[in-house]
């Protein structure tokens, strides 16, 4: 295989050992073990219970991983920018609430463990309906249709009561007393294990999908839809099928959402959630399979944890996007993949020093800018709210110029220093790349 096609392969498929086409099992196993072990890291031994907040964040992360992966089936693999992915998620969530209510009253004899599967099928159904309209077009027209769909469904969700419950949403009780393993799902940790199980199943499903003819044709239509037509496939049918399957997996995530929170409101179909999926997939890296997973973890942490510490978390999110978009358009996994040639040549060790030299001014710039944002926010908003600004437990006096000056110095000084170190780093990098891949284009 030529270099070009190998490089292209690496884009949607994880790197494989050349030669035997073995699937590597151990990353999946490692991920499973880590996810199962994580809640125990934060077990509250004093009160003999799990840290509810941690389990919540982990559960949310698990759902978002499935959601982001299913979104990337459209964006990264099929080149379809969809703003209505949240609609598939949310409508499946609403359906699941109704399923759970029916199961709770005995009308639906489905065990809890299979409810997400039902949710997936409802996601598939809704995706087929909306996809029929949307996938007639491609590229920008497709994106605009999905924008129209998401606004339509969001507005409708606040108006109609029987299915959507209006503005208040619909509620359910997940203790339906029907489980394959005899679990009651009273405690959040049990729901978390359910989420981990389904996340694994969904991820494996989506991973294998990338190797199927449909998955490969979706890539082809993304890259050159005209050429795909010459080969004999109708791109709109490929799009339709891909959209529907993406809806299936999004539905699984929506079902898990309904089980975890026991309430679904119109926020679950609204555009901000679809925008979240876009962020996660893009920031993690839309060109790799595992990118959205990383993105989901990062964004969920940002939203849940950082918003606890600062009300300006929206600014940080905005700055993160802009930085990624300018400096790292291939996402986090893109950055990591760039190291691949150097890693293979065994030269990673030589990057340690340059990285640490960049790290220090980088940290200074970060500290300075976060400091300024927080100071400004506190000055105009927080102070009147009666809050107190503390850094590592030391109260800060907002009136004096000292904190402002320190932050400004860190920002500007660190900025100049960083620019210098970055140039130096680039020189080292180029040198190493030359050694690792002699003659390759930079």
């Amino acid at each position, binding site marked *: 295989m030529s270099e070009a096609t190998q490089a292209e392969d690496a884009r949607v498929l994880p790197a494989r050992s050349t030669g035997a086409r073995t699937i590597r099992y151990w990353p999946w196993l490692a991920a499973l073990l880590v996810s199962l072990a994580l809640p125990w890291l934060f077990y509250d031994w004093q009160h003999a219970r799990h840290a509810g*907040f941690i389990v919540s964040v982990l559960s949310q992360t698990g759902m978002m991983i499935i959601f982001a992966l299913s979104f990337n089936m459209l964006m990264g693999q099929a080149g379809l920018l969809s703003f209505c992915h949240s609609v598939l998620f949310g409508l499946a969530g609403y359906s699941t609430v109704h399923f759970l209510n029916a199961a709770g009253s005995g009308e639906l004899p489905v065990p809890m463990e299979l409810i997400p599967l039902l949710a997936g099928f409802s996601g598939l159904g809704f995706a087929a309906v909306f996809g029929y309209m949307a996938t007639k077009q491609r590229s920008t027209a497709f994106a605009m249709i999905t924008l129209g769909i998401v606004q339509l469904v969001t507005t409708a969700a606040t108006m109609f009561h029987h299915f959507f419950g*209006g*503005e*208040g949403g619909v509620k359910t009780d997940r203790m339906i007393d029907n489980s394959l393993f005899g679990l009651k799902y009273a405690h959040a940790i049990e729901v978390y294990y359910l989420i981990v199980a389904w996340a694994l199943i969904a991820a494996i499903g989506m991973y294998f999908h990338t190797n199927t003819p449909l998955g490969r044709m979706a890539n082809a239509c993304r890259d050159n839809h005209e050429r795909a037509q010459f080969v004999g496939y109708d791109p709109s049918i490929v799009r339709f099928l891909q959209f529907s399957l993406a809806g299936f997996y999004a539905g699984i995530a929506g079902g898990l959402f309904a089980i975890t929170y*026991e309430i679904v*409101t119109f926020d679950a179909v609204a555009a901000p959630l679809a925008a979240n999926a876009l962020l996660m997939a893009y920031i993690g890296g839309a060109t790799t399979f595992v990118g959205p997973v990383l993105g989901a973890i990062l964004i969920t942490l940002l939203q849940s944890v950082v*918003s606890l510490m600062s*009300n300006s978390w*929206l600014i940080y999110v905005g700055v993160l996007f802009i930085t990624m978009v300018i400096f790292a358009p291939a996402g986090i996994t893109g950055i990591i993949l760039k190291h691949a040639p150097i890693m293979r040549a065994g030269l990673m060790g030589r990057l340690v020093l340059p990285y640490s030299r960049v790290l220090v001014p980088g940290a200074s710039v970060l500290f300075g800018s976060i400091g300024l944002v927080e100071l400004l926010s506190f000055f105009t908003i927080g102070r009147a709210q009666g809050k107190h600004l503390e850094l590592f437990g030391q109260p800060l006096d907002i009136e004096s110029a000292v904190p402002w000056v320190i932050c400004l110095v860190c920002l500007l000084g660190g900025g100049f220093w960083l620019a210098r170190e970055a140039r130096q780093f680039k020189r080292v990098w180029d040198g190493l790349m030359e050694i690792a891949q002699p003659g390759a284009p930079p």
Partner: protein
Amino acid sequence: MKFPRFIAMISLVLLGLGLWGSGARAADATIKIGYIDPFSGASASVGDASLKMFQFIVDNINAKGGALGKKFELVTFDDKQQPAEALIALKSVTDQNLSFVMSCVGSNIGSALIDAVNKHNTRNPDNRVLQLNCGQLATELTNEQCSFWHFRFAGSVEMRAVARIKSLPASLKTVYLLNQDYLFGQSIRNDTKKFLALYRPDIKIVGDEMIPLMQVKDFSPYITKIKASGAESLLTGNYGPDLALLIKAGVDAGLNIRYDSYLGHVIGAPTAIGAAGDGRLTSVMEIHDNISVEENNAAQEEFVKQWRATHDFGFIAINSVTQFDMLVRAIEKAGSTDPLKVALALEGMEQKDMFGAVNVMRKDDHQLLNPYYEAVLTKGQKYDVEKTGMGWKTEFKTTVADETLPTTCQMKRPES
């Protein structure tokens, strides 16, 4: 794909250690109250204003010694006006063993919290939490959805409707209803119709409109309809931009009508109505700045002056003052902050509010019963509102007895 997973694991562990460190807390030297409201996004202004008022109240309470020798502390959580986020915040609250959680904005959030608190307290009897509702007004929350663990310190829609309908002038014959199409707005419309039929059957409802929440920018078509109907009064539960824009459109069109609102005293509407609205806007409220003048209450007038010196919006949280006074007494009576004991102490408690009226926390549905004032926005008042030159003038007052309404609550009480 070695690296991404490796990096992911490392970063998770590192972040986790950090979280763990921040989670550990020393023995509670203060009584912490979790406060969940939107602090970012579109409704941030409401959460912001409420927080300022609560901080003011808590500072006053702490200055008087707090409860059981401990001071109160507010721990804020941003729910971004989404029920799922509010539930995550609730997990944080119970994680940190806070005994009380407070929330004011959004009846749908309140409804979600009631449900979640019930489920949590049933599934985790050793880590209960008490829910204090400071502003989620839908009548259903203390009727169909009532709960032993939920105490509402803000007048329900029903209570306000009584004040609203009883205070309408006797000469009024036609009204036009306009409300927001969601739980709260529907609650307003239903209760308004109910009490119109009960107290003022002579009034004819010539229009009944529901508008989508916070979506309408241009109210002129609605004004056209209202004018065509010939209504003398516009009865509306709108608030925020929905009310401000409605009034603006009406005033611009020169519509000769009364604006009889439920939430016209909440920030924004007085600014919107402007000078042309002199004598047109009325609202039902628990407190306004001129009551102390009208009732010759010097201590409260001092309070008003103190607040106005440092804030540019009116103090409307009189019920929260009552809430904290009651909470202090309940904690001292129960001898601890255990939610069950405090709840039993709170039920049925009577407390004098800032003006000396005796408020009652009814045991049947955990609704605080307090009097209401109906006031008109007009010139020539001692204290104006939002620097418009106009202030509120009381026209009508209800008593606690007036506000004691039947409830359909079938409260399930915990065994222990």
